[in-house]
């Protein structure tokens, strides 16, 4: 069960709408390395994880990612509010506008819709945590790419905050992987799959 808190994890107040920016930032909502995928990946992986501390890391990071997709959607919403048809055409926002008006829809920068294939859950502790570490780095790279293209401080600050969280989560997943390995045979980490063989 979750409790909704009426606040963002980090404040967002964008004064100047800019649909051209929203077009690519939306990828961190519904794209392959976006926050929805991150949240559902970690929350899905918890159930078969035999080590309580590691299941705790997956629960807490997966929950924080719920707050992150709320932040990315807020950025997209504030960048696309009160648009005129003129601004939509100038920004090249026509394709999105025709399909979704100014509603927030989970899609990648390239326009394809959210796909559950991006949240791997393999049922093997080493495999899944290695996936999670890579996922955090992919999201960090995406935020770095976004930061190369935005010039509005109202957008830059929350994106920098989200980028930093990817680095922190990468660190925590690395420690979680270490906890798993400490429970395994140090001569051969792959001798068993603790999520299947330790029942």
């Amino acid at each position, binding site marked *: 069960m979750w409790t909704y808190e009426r606040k*963002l994890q980090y404040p967002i107040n964008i004064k100047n709408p800019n649909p051209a920016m929203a077009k690519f930032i939306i990828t961190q909502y519904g794209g392959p390395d976006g926050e929805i995928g991150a949240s559902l990946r970690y929350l899905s992986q918890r159930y078969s994880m035999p080590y309580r501390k590691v299941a705790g890391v997956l629960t807490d990071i997966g929950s924080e990612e719920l707050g992150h997709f709320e932040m990315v959607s807020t950025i997209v919403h504030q960048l696309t509010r009160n648009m005129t048809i003129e601004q939509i055409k100038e920004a090249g926002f026509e394709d999105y506008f025709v399909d979704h008006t100014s509603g927030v829809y989970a899609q990648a920068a390239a326009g394809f819709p959210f796909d559950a294939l991006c949240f791997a859950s393999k049922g093997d502790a080493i495999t899944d945590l290695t996936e999670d570490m890579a996922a955090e780095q992919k999201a960090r790279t995406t935020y770095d790419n976004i930061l190369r293209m935005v010039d509005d401080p109202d957008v830059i600050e929350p994106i920098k905050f989200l980028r930093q969280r990817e680095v922190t989560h990468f660190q925590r997943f690395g420690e979680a992987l270490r906890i798993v390995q400490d429970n395994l045979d140090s001569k051969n980490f792959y001798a068993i799959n603790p999520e299947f063989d330790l029942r």
Partner: protein
Amino acid sequence: MTRAEALRRVQMYSFALDDTGLFLDTHPDNRAALTFYDDTRKKYLEAVEDYEMQFGPLTAKDSDVENGWTWVDAPWPWEVEE
């Protein structure tokens, strides 16, 4: 204190607890982190109480229904602050 200022205090302490809690998940015996968590938690609870007294509930279950159901009247987090 304005609503934005009161909310900022809640956000600051709340985030400090998020981050320290995550650190404690993998370092549960770290004394410095436990002490920081305990100090920050007190400040967080105070900030939440100050905010909710003036500006309404931060979670639905914090609703005081003496003046009716106000949960759906206050600004939502994605709205640009006044």
